């Protein structure tokens, strides 16, 4: 998968990690296929200058989800809860798009989440221009491959990656918990890169 930088970006001075604004996104889904499955909830949290701003944490439930019961993954979200707190997906995605524009998107396994997001952004005709995309799963895979021959899939789950950095185990597995968990994982991954001063965003993409 290739996430190309928009061409106008290349002329600018390369953005540094510590000067960057990022949005970490996690989705809860009813399945793995964007053409068949639905988004149950969307959560995001922002990283500014190397700091996760807890204040920016957002957790939104999709009112329009039809197939909650058939979701292969149990999210602990009940239908009454969605009834009460849910909103239209288009509203949610509009809010996310405005948070995301000109910033960097971060996901753990971006292939999945960005696939879903892109599909619905196009569907609702929402224009969104993330600066670039960072995948903490790919980052970790790259790092592990430098030290060992092969990486097994179970070594790359979010809890497995976090455990490697001594990050606390989170009990709740909703989208918001995972978004923060991913954000913290990225901080830890960056914190363990050798050269700190000049870490460029490009080093992470």
């Amino acid at each position: 998968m290739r996430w190309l930088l928009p061409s106008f970006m290349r002329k600018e001075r390369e953005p540094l990690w510590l000067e960057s604004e990022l949005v970490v996104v996690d989705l809860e889904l009813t399945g793995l296929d964007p053409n068949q499955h639905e988004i149950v909830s969307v959560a995001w949290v922002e990283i500014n200058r190397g700091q996760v701003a807890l204040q920016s944490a957002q957790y939104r439930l999709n009112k329009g989800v039809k197939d909650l019961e058939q979701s292969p993954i149990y999210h602990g979200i009940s239908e009454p809860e969605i009834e009460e707190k849910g909103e239209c997906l288009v509203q949610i995605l509009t809010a996310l798009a405005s948070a995301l524009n000109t910033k960097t998107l971060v996901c753990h396994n971006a292939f999945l989440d960005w696939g879903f997001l892109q599909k619905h952004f196009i569907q609702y005709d929402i224009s969104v221009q993330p600066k670039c995309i960072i995948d903490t799963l790919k980052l970790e895979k790259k790092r592990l491959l430098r030290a060992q021959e092969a990486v097994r899939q179970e070594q790359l789950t979010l809890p497995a990656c976090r455990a490697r950095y001594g990050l606390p185990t989170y009990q709740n597995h909703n989208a918001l918990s995972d978004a923060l968990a991913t954000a913290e994982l990225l901080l830890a991954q960056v914190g363990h890169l050798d050269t700190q001063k000049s870490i460029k965003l490009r080093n992470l993409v």
Partner: protein
Amino acid sequence: MTHTHSAVTDVLDFVTQQLPFSTLPASCAHFFVNHAKVVYITSLNQAELLSSEQKYLYLVRSGVFDLVDNSGEVVTRLGEGDYFGYPSLLTGEDIQNHLEVQTGGLIFLLPQEDFDFLRREYPAFEQHFVRAHKKRLLSSHYKERGRGWSERKISTLMCRTAVTIEPKASVVEAAKTMHKAGVSSVIITENGQLSGIVTDRDLRNRVLAAELDPHVSVTKVMTRDPKFIFENNRAFAALHLMLKHNIHHLPVLNEERMPLGMVTSTDLLRQQKHDPVQLIGQIYKANSHQEVVHLAKEIPALLRGFSNTVEDISFIGTLLSGLTDAMTSRLTELFIKQQGEPPCRFCWICFGSQAREEQTLHSDQDNGLIVSNSILPHQRAYFAKLGEFVTGHLISCGIKACPGGIMASNELCRGTVDEWLMRFDQWCHTPTPQAMLNSKIFFDRRFIFGDQFLYQALNAQLNNMQKQDIFFAAMATDISANSVPMGLFQQFKLQRDKRKHGYLDLKTRGVAIVNDLARIYALKCGVAKANTQARLEALKAFSILSKEDIYNLQDCWRFLTQLRFKIQIEDLDLPPNCINPEHLSSLERHQLKEAFHLIKQAQQACVFKFARGSL
């Protein structure tokens, strides 16, 4: 629809479990979570992420970090649930300590303005951090050290020029070289590199005692490949090597391993000269009272260099009392040397602050002599002269005369065991104000020097003496006559001097009250100790005071004593033991008010306990 409650449950759960949030309303933890930032700190990125421009309260979520002070000493190790950064938030001063990352981890950051908000909204939140800061101060302040001698570099201590000879030289030549240079050892070098060492002792043991021909090569008697030290090592490392291998000479090498000189155990001992414990030893060995006085002159300067190196401030009190004990003992021995053996058994006792081991540079003398019951009238003159001699020279040593005349030069402070008992008995049964004053001084007593059996005899009989309720009631009433300098609305009540400087007397209106309280409870429970902290510690075994009350009194005492020493050493332009609250930081003022408040409560409880009937 609002989304302000999108707090991450896991973070909220964690924060809610931490003090002080666990004792505060849930809204407090919510506020924290909604305003905190998260960073991941490693040794590589800490400089970038923990810049001091913006001040934060830091809460460790994972990882291990050491908090290190300016002198490089670890103040405390921080792990999950530990805070740092609050001293600077509370005092407004710059951050004093820095972080050393042991294991990288997540840290929550709460900006100053949000910390301030919680302080305003939740008094218990503020109190938690004020207390934590006080504890940190107590434990870390006296760990600070000026440059201890053991941290000095070898290059500053060693004998500058290396005395060397070639391997082809004979033992005689080696001895001549040492004699010429006036040193006790010589280095044997080969091509400029260290190859061996010969010392005085080697000449004795390996040449003379072994009846070896002194014209043999020096290589036959030298220690091959001796232990050595580099010029950039610390004195401590040299001392350690010497002790470990029981050697007295260490060649000093530079980075290229060329011999630069020699460091000996004598060089290191010389560095310890300014050690107060050493001074006590020197006083015990002084050959004349002039020498005792001369040695005593070093005490104030010594204390100045020392005050910050003692972990617990009360050690200074112990040290000063120890020095005074040493002077009293040595002066007595010198007197006996001069005037002949005493006509009967006797011993020195001390009272008041010296007995409590709480002496300061301003404390005056409180001492006395106990003599044998079998003393004959004409023998008393000897002890009058002894009292005169010792107390007089103690004054020359800088320990002022007691304004109340409680000194062995005063006839009323000399006496047989029976005479002392009669005095105590009188104070206990006819509690006049003067008797109460005497009780305060004389019930804090300690043996210094002489015949210990006399002191034990007096003590045993005093403990058996029935102390009546009326005695305790009078004592409690007397304690309550003194008050902490706090007015209404938690304001300091200042005393004024001639030049209209406002000040607080930390001794008589703070420390002394805690001492009084510890004494009355100790007497009631039969605790035979004089030191206030020791008394309070011992009182934990009795039910007369709750543990919390005892801890509070101990804390107050330590805090006030620490402040008191600080001002004494800083030598401010105020009466002894007094402090101008304006010279304190806002935090210290806050703590001082809290200390006074606690003392007042304890005082009231004491009156209630002992003086109910008579008030």
